[in-house]
């Protein structure tokens, strides 16, 4: 049913994201996985989350990524050609990190198994936007403002960093 459909979609898409050598495909697959997630949000009676998932993530952030990919136009990431001589830069850490990731998965599964079986969602969902908005602008008003400041800072920083120097490539 829908949950498993969306779940499978999300997992497969994500796997393909990191299995791709071509960043453009990665971005698109990630968008797919986001779509699946927003579907899951819908199933969780969180239409607002679903909507902004699409609007903000898929509609804005991912477009940004796609932009950068196209701008730099490096479709295929360089292969093992430039493995560094430095021991720490050999594929070792990658494998180690991957192993760690798997270990993390195992631990999370363990934790869930310890928490015992959980019931299906019984209590009434909160779908009304007004409720969310109300909480957001009363209890979390301060955090909201801080976030806005954060975004402003990020914007300035991004503009500053992406600005081309007078003579590009001069700093080597």
């Amino acid at each position: 049913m829908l949950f498993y459909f969306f779940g499978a979609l999300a997992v497969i898409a994500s796997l393909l994201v990191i299995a791709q050598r071509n960043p453009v495909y990665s971005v698109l697959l990630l968008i797919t996985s986001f779509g699946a997630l927003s579907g899951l949000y819908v199933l969780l009676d969180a239409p607002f989350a679903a909507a902004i998932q699409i609007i903000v993530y898929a509609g804005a952030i991912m477009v940004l990524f796609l932009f950068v990919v196209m701008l730099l136009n490096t479709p295929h990431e360089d292969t093992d050609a430039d493995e560094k001589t430095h021991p720490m830069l050999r594929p070792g850490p990658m494998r180690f990190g991957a192993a760690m990731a798997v270990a993390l998965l195992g631990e999370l599964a363990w934790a869930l198994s310890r928490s015992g079986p959980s019931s299906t969602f019984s209590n009434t969902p909160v779908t009304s936007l007004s409720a969310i908005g109300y909480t957001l602008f009363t209890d979390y008003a301060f955090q909201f403002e801080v976030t806005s400041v954060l975004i402003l800072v990020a914007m300035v920083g991004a503009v500053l960093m992406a600005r081309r120097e007078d003579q590009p490539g001069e700093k080597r």
Partner: protein
Amino acid sequence: MFSVISNNSFVIAQVGIAAVVWFLLQISAAVMVYFERKVCAWLQQRVGPNRVGKAGLLQPIADVVKLLFKEELRPAAADPWLFALAPIISATAAFAAFAVVPFGGSTTLFGLLSEPLPLHVADVNVAVLVVFAITSMGVYGIVLAGWSSNSKYSLLGALRSSAQMISYELSYGMALAAVLVLANSMSLRDIVNAQSGSLLGIPQFRWFVFLNPLGFLLFFIAGIAETNRAPFDFPEAEQELVAGYHTEYSSMSFGMFFLAEYINMVTVSAVTTDLFLGGWWFPGVPESLGWLVFLFKISVLLFFYLWMRWSLPRYRYDQLMSFGWKVMLPASVLNVIATAAAVLYFGL
């Protein structure tokens, strides 16, 4: 959340409506093509298509046939998957957006149904957001088309259009927010019904275009930019980049972009109607005939589109951008604030 009443006849009717809407949208594209050329001709003191059928009425069919029988070309360097995917995305987004747009009150189809059936494909309590989301998806079709066809014209066109769409999405959303404040809901149906009140003593005349004219203006302009129509048609600026993002496309895949463009126009017009022009409400017209009113209003807006395209010159790209960021966005933000203040003050 899909408010579908589980009843066979209703299900059938619902599906029927969906099918009708889908069909009508395609027809509308054809009609739009015809009228585009006719209006263009009238504005240029010409006759326009008049050979195929009576007054060239069959011209769109001829066009479609031509498209269908053209050869499907794909550049060797193009990325096959994305090249194929791009037009589909565009078309899908265009069609999907209309799904949550109500286009009339409820009808019993002359007593065929036991209960009134609301005229829409699907009603979502966050319909506005859904429309917004889907239109924002539309950009991918363009971007991918431009990138996958691996041609500089296409890429430039794609980058331009996506940048343009993202920039104008902001003011688009802001103008929309003002309406949400007025209607105090995100469901398009609620919004429409919120405009059925009386204004200046005239019933069913409480349209937001009167309450919030600036919002309407902003929304309309942003909508034009969203649909990449003249004078903001940079993605396909013939004089600069052959045909923009669909330079490399031919035959039916090109037709899909073509389709998507016109359906987008229809969708935006429909949304504008719902948001500002009182939807299917018109003084003195019963709700049962609302869909006719709705059709009429959409047509008026669409005529505006054509009118502008053939009378206004294209902007320069930097002008477009600075206009979007330095005029539209501040104006729309101000509009939201002012509207909210007014709502609080007058208790509208």
